[in-house]
């Protein structure tokens, strides 16, 4: 009897603790309707509930918003930002005309200035998502220039400059009234939550379930606002990297064979992740450990 009376409070305490721990994990009821507005609302709520002290706009600072020491290091780093060389290079490249006399400005609305927050967009003619990186290479090819590698160097420099001209502007990703756009969004969402690679990780495993936690020496960034800082200078890479680089290296880190940059899956997941971060400011180019 004494034993039983001792077990009940223990069991009840364990159950309460389990509820507290697992209560932060999203519920597992499946929804079959595609509702991006509700998704974005739930996405923001999940992260703001998880980090109640953090201002919404601070989520774009990734791991620096999760850890006080890192935040202080970042503030110091921002005085001489490691991405500055790339920003300068991008500015020069952007202004330099192609051999046919035209330039990047001729390919984009508002001459390419202050438009980063509108990418990726759904192109109704093509029926697919178009990212900024893809649009830049298409611009080059349309003007007789060879495309750049999607992962670093020139592409990172160009997107760094374009992001810089949009700093502070909130992400404004649209999903047009086109079933193909909704399908692309949904595919991106599915990709984001799907486990892959021998390590059986999804994007969400790190960036939804564990932001603020360490994976080896790194502090994981929250998924909310994660693309607002792209492209980034990563100390781990000793250089700049684009969104394409981030996606492909994430895949290989979990022992999955990465797809080709700008394959439909990556374009769609960028569309999904950018949409659910609508309203958060562009902060790129960024720097990460």
């Amino acid at each position, binding site marked *: 009897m004494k034993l039983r009376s001792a077990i009940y409070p223990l069991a009840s305490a364990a159950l309460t603790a389990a509820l507290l721990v697992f209560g932060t994990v*999203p*519920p*597992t*009821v*499946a*929804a079959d309707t595609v509702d991006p507005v*509700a*998704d974005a609302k*739930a*996405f923001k709520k*999940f992260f703001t509930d998880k980090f109640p002290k953090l201002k919404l706009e601070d989520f774009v600072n990734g791991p620096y918003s999760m850890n006080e020491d890192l935040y202080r290091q970042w503030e110091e780093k921002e005085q001489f930002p490691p991405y500055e060389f790339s920003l300068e290079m991008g500015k020069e490249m952007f202004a330099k005309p192609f051999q046919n006399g035209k330039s990047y400005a001729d390919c984009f609305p508002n001459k390419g200035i202050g438009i980063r927050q509108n990418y990726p967009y759904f192109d109704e003619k093509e029926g697919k998502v178009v990212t900024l990186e893809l649009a830049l290479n298409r611009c080059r090819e349309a003007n007789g220039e060879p495309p750049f590698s999607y992962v670093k160097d020139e592409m990172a420099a160009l997107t760094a400059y374009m992001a810089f001209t949009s700093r502070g502007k909130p992400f404004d990703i649209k999903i047009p009234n086109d079933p193909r756009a909704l399908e692309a969004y949904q595919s991106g*969402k*599915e990709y984001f*939550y*799907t*486990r*892959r*690679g*021998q390590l*059986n990780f*999804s994007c*969400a*495993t790190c960036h*939804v*379930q564990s932001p603020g936690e360490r994976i080896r020496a790194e502090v994981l960034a929250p998924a909310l606002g994660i693309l607002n800082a792209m492209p980034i200078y990563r100390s781990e890479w000793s250089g700049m990297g684009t969104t394409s680089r981030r996606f492909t290296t994430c895949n*290989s880190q979990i*022992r*999955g*064979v990465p*797809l080709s940059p700008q394959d439909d*899956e990556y374009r769609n997941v960028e569309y999904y992740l950018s949409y659910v971060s609508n309203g958060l400011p562009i902060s790129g180019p960024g720097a990460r450990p």
Partner: protein
Amino acid sequence: MRNILVASVLLIASATSVFAASSEADFKAAYAAAEAANREAGSLRNQWTVTAAALNAAKKAAETGDFDKAVAASNEAEALAKASIFQVKSEKTLWKDLEIR
């Protein structure tokens, strides 16, 4: 005594057949099966880097004539490829368990 001899011969024969060295043909069959499974994983957009590494190890071992090692690496590659196929199929519905809603 005769029975013991017969039993010993049979035992030795069965033991040597278990530990018999793999042949090039064994390797080719095991490698082809592994490659086929990995191709299927590729068509499902879910290959694993470790599968490619095991296939490479199998090929290298075969080139040096070590067919035991080559067959073992091929079998490992096939098992990994099949696991990646299982993963992609099961995640068709399981991904929803992680979804924020």
